[in-house]
């Protein structure tokens, strides 16, 4: 990435996500731990975080979304601290975050179509808008239509692609990608990068957590920073190394 180009973008871009001196002890042995982490993610920026294959990222992503509180430090989304806003605002803000989950990602008693459009319908987007947005992402991924079967009866690869659509169609300000290429072959990498490019152009910041060895090189075409968790712990020094 061109440093000068990056600096000029930094000045114009708004801060989407900010972590101030955040420490979070892992819930489980395999969860990603955070130690004194300072982090800023701006709109139109991609931040990739390399974790070990055995490290679970779910609790870290949930903390970024304000679902769980960190043990220490503060998490800001769109310059608002999660703990400083009322519940209604918290849920409205989470509606501005698209997420590809690691592990369980679906409401099992709804079919995939209902699951994918659930958040948009709940947040009051019109049917036509949802349909257009869904169709646009289906076309982008080369899929015909959303599956109307329940998640338990759908192949993991199809589920993962539906997760992409759900995350990207929400007009997000922040996209959290937890191992988005799991269950998919390498032919899908380009489509994912194109999708990331599209949401970044519309002003979203993207945080991609993965254990792929080629993660750093995948993001090289964007305004991109790369961090690496050491021994399951992510901390500020590793950011400096990344920069």
């Amino acid at each position, binding site marked *: 990435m061109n440093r000068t180009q990056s600096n000029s973008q930094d000045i114009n871009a708004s801060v989407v996500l900010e972590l101030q001196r955040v420490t979070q002890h892992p819930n489980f042995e395999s969860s990603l731990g955070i130690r004194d982490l300072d982090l800023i993610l701006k709109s139109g920026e991609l931040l990739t975080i390399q974790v070990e294959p055995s490290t679970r990222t*779910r609790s870290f*992503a*949930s903390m970024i*979304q304000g*679902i769980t509180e960190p043990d220490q430090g503060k998490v800001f989304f769109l310059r608002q601290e999660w703990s400083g806003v009322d*519940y209604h605002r918290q*849920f*409205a*803000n*989470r*509606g*501005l*975050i698209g*997420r590809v*989950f690691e*592990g*369980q*990602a*679906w*409401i*099992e*008693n709804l079919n995939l179509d209902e699951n994918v459009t*659930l*958040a948009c*319908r*709940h*947040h*009051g987007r019109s049917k036509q808008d949802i349909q257009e947005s869904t169709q646009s992402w289906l076309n982008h991924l080369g899929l015909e239509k959303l599956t109307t079967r329940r998640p338990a009866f759908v192949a993991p690869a199809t589920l993962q692609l539906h997760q992409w659509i759900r995350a990207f169609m*929400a007009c997000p300000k922040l996209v959290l990608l937890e191992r988005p290429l799991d269950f998919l072959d390498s032919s899908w990498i380009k489509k994912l990068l194109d999708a990331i490019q599209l949401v970044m152009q519309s002003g979203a910041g993207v945080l991609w957590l993965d254990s792929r060895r080629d993660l750093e090189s995948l993001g090289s075409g964007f305004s991109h920073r790369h961090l690496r968790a050491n021994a399951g712990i992510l901390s500020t020094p590793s950011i400096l190394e990344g920069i």
Partner: protein
Amino acid sequence: MQVSRAKPNGFRLIFWVQPTQILDSLGGAVVRRCQAIISILSLLWASFTLAVSPRSWTEPVRGVMARQLLFTGVDGTWSAIRFGAAVGILLIVQAALWVDAIGITTDLIAPMLWRAIVRELAPLLACLVVIGRSGIAISTELATMRVDGELDVLDAQGIDPMTSLIMPRITSMVFSVFCLALISSTSMIMTGYVCGRAVGVIRVSFLSFLDQLIGQVHSLDLLFFLPKTIVAGAFAAAICCIDGLSVKATITDVPRVSSRAGIRALSAVFIISAILSILIYGRILIFEVF
């Protein structure tokens, strides 16, 4: 030495440790009960405030409400009719015994039927149907969703699980209990008449019987019927939801939690029914309390 040391220990055990432990466990039980009641009331208040707010009723929430009403209210109709019919027969058989024993007439059977059905049995029966059909199912569903991390999935998409899962379920259970109580009371009266006519306890036409029943309608009936259906239904629903959400992160807890929720909800319904009767009648059995 050991024996001489044992005596004061035993003495202390009887006169100090045991009373303290008993008080401790009693106090703990009272505190836990109070906490449970407070959490139920909090959940009901939160559900009420969400239910009266128009912005809570988004399209998916309306969908959950409709599905729950269909499952709890509409699908439970036949159960309510069946149980109502069975209880109607039991009531009329009892009435027949009294007719034989002391020679009472239909004039006295009609008010007895009306009061027993509308004030006591129909609300209780509707609660039993709703807990059996839906309460335990709701508890199991919520527990499974919590264990599987589905609540986090909702939360992460900016969908409040309280608004989208709990409030519509509690609202639909309350509404279903009220409607099923009406249905089961109608079933009891109809079956009671048919059965009573067949065994010769009731000798008047259906219209006369209905006229006698309508003559028994009292403002107190509404005072019984509304709280007994709404309050008992709301408590049962809240208990099922709280128990379902209280599950720890293992799937093996789910059956235990579900059966506990069913028992606790049933207990609550009987206790609330008794308390409301005491409050409304102002007496326990023959003893005036107010």
